[in-house]
């Protein structure tokens, strides 16, 4: 028996911040799941933040301090509608056999006369403060066809009405997984059609782990940068590199609830800075210039950060993934993406990066790879993501011919979700048929 509870307890004491904060605090980023995944909304919690469900606005204030995973429903009180936390009732295990249900749809006629309640009557009930569940009960009681329906259709009917009259909101922690899923569902093109299973492959195949120095070319809005930082947990570095003079925007990093410790590990540096190993300043005035550069860096850092924030608010207004901006005061997330320090760049030149992830949409994989691959140490794994197969095939061929890498492979993940219910299990009727291609390999010494 070697279980060591002390270790667990000790490590929890040691941690100043839980790696997994369990409560939604003011100013933190949250994911709101409306009606079981029908709608996913990212928001930064504040007293003034507002979410629109149906045609009503709801303050997100009741969510502050609630544990992640709590469920909310809408209620109507004296001052209008508000969100209120509900504690779930333990569900009875109703495993009655549906196969015995002999009802079918032969008597159901679609003539729009099934419901006796009118829209005005329902609205009146609402004004009088009826709860969503009560409205649904009334709808069922006034439905001529409900009893004739097959048990399955009865459930579907209830669910449909619940979504409309008693919407439920689940408070979730934003993780790489949920952020990727939300974007893939709503704005797949912005993340280059990188599906969550493909993202998970990138992290695995690049061997991202604590204390790694991960080089990324992230042209998918910061999703890869954030996912890597999440796995680093405030150790090592994720260095975002770019061609030219302006870094690629990584605004999605703000959606993760990263502590300052984690954010400090997200840095950026241009390909030129990283690769111009021998064009460093002349030995003589080294110190003086060092100071000078440091100042420049600070200035540049602050200016790039400002630009980033502006970009974020601009995209927010454009309605990129519903991000609810609190109206009163904008609580800014801690800044990330500072310039890599001279010392760290020097360290990378010395040791090489321990992994590389390229997710550069609109760029030819080979033209990027041939520049950044030499920055990687020997035996280090790399992955290149692309939404098109052909350029990856060409890249793989060139790597093979140049004998730059081994264990080269192009893979395409395939993901299918299932409905699992008693006697009614089957794959979902609709599925995503494409989540991207991944070229993976290990860099080797050519000598």
């Amino acid at each position, binding site marked *: *028996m*070697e*279980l060591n509870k002390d270790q*667990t307890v000790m*490590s929890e004491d*040691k*941690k100043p911040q*839980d*790696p*997994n904060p*369990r409560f939604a605090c003011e100013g933190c980023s949250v994911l709101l799941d409306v009606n079981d995944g029908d709608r996913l909304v990212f928001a930064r919690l504040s007293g003034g933040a507002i979410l629109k469900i149906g045609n009503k606005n709801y303050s997100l204030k009741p969510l502050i301090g609630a*544990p*992640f*995973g709590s469920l909310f429903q809408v209620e109507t009180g004296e001052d209008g509608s508000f969100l209120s936390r509900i504690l*779930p009732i*333990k569900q009875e*295990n109703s495993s009655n056999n549906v196969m015995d249900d002999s009802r079918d749809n032969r008597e159901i006629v679609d003539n729009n006369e099934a419901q006796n309640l009118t829209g005005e009557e329902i609205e009146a009930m609402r004004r009088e403060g009826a709860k969503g569940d009560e409205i649904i009960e009334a709808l069922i009681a006034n439905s001529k066809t409900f009893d004739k329906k097959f048990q399955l259709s009865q459930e579907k009917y209830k669910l449909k009405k619940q979504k409309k009259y008693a919407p439920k909101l689940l408070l979730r*922690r934003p*993780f790489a997984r949920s952020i990727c899923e939300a974007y893939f569902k709503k704005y797949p093109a912005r993340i280059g059609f990188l599906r*969550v*299973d493909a993202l*998970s*492959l990138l992290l*695995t*195949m690049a061997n991202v*782990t*604590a*204390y*790694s*120095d991960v080089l990324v070319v992230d042209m998918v809005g910061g999703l890869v940068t954030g996912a890597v930082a999440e*796995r680093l*947990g405030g*150790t090592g570095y994720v260095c975002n590199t770019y061609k030219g003079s302006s870094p690629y925007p990584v605004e999605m990093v703000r959606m993760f609830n990263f502590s300052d410790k984690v954010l400090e590990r997200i840095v950026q540096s241009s390909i030129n800075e990283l690769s111009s190993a021998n064009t460093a300043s002349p030995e003589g005035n080294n110190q003086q210039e060092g100071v000078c550069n440091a100042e420049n860096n600070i200035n540049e850092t602050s200016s790039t950060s400002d630009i980033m924030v502006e970009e974020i608010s601009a995209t927010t207004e454009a309605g990129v993934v519903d991000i609810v901006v609190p109206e009163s005061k904008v609580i800014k997330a801690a800044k990330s993406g500072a310039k890599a320090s001279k010392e760290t760049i020097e360290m990378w030149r010395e040791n*090489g990066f*321990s992994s590389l992830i390229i997710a550069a949409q609109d760029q030819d994989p080979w033209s990027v790879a041939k520049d950044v691959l030499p920055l990687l*140490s020997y*035996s*280090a*794994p790399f992955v290149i993501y692309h939404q098109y*197969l052909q350029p990856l*095939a*060409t890249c793989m061929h060139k790597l093979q011919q140049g004998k730059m890498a081994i*264990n*080269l492979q*192009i*893979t*395409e*993940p*395939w*993901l*299918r*979700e*299932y*409905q*699992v219910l008693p006697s009614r*299990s089957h794959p979902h009727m609709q599925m995503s048929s494409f989540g991207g291609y991944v070229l993976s390999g*290990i860099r*080797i*010494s050519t*000598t």
Partner: protein
Amino acid sequence: MLPTESKKAFSFKRCIEDGDLVIVYERHDVMKPVKVSKDGVLQNRFGVYKHSDWIGKPLGTKVFSNKGKFVYLLAPTPELWTLVLSHRTQILYIADISFVVMYLEVVPGCVVLESGTGSGSLSTSLARAVAPTGHVYSFDFHEQRAVSAREDFEKTGISSLVTVEVRDIQGEGFPEKLSGLADSVFLDLPQPWLAVPSAAKMLKQDGVLCSFSPCIEQVQRTCEVLRSDFIEIRTFEVLLRTYEVKEVKMDTSSMVGESHEEDNEGMRPCKRKHRSNENDTVSQDNSSNASSVVMARPCSEARGHTGYLTFARLQCLA
């Protein structure tokens, strides 16, 4: 294999030392884990390799046998390890492993419970995800398997991150003292539904559970039990399709029109290729019509099923 403190962080420029574990790479499907010892030798069909030649060389370089043939020496990673470990049980493969780690929301510092340990393929990846401060508690009812797994974790240098215990999780549940401490739980058991109530006790609120089962009937029963304490119950199947990349000569001459004598034969690549081998000048002449193109197509065979992955989140009651 995994760094537990910054001093031990990966530095691939580090040279191979006596006692290191390296992966000897012959081909993408021929690899072998080797512990370097100054008197050791490796023998394969290409000859004899002396370990003493390896010491002092950086990882990722070629080393030669007495017959002048080479292999590569690589740093072990959980992925390479999965390819070379001895299969004591059916193991989880990279697509499932990656998806599980991501969906269980495992990050550094997490406490993860797993049963059974099996060959330790997933345990190694879980350890990588919880490092440096988290921990994986792995359980297997098979005494010998647990011993072998411990030896493996010792060999790969991750034993400070993984604890293996012999225990029948289906029969006894997880140990009481881990109650409420787990961020995530992974079940790979023949009757996972028996372990679900105990797993629910172990999880922190809002923690995530995953159950891996090859058969849909197992999934069915597990889901029925999950419904009482868990929400967001979702079942997935994840597979990989791999691609072959080849440089292929494609004849691009048109069927009609151009009055080349070769046009009629042009549609038969075998014949043309044969001829171009005989006579280089002919192939030069043909180059305007037959160009080399790099192309990709799916490999003909693939793993068609591994198992269903069912995820669920512990309901928040407090």
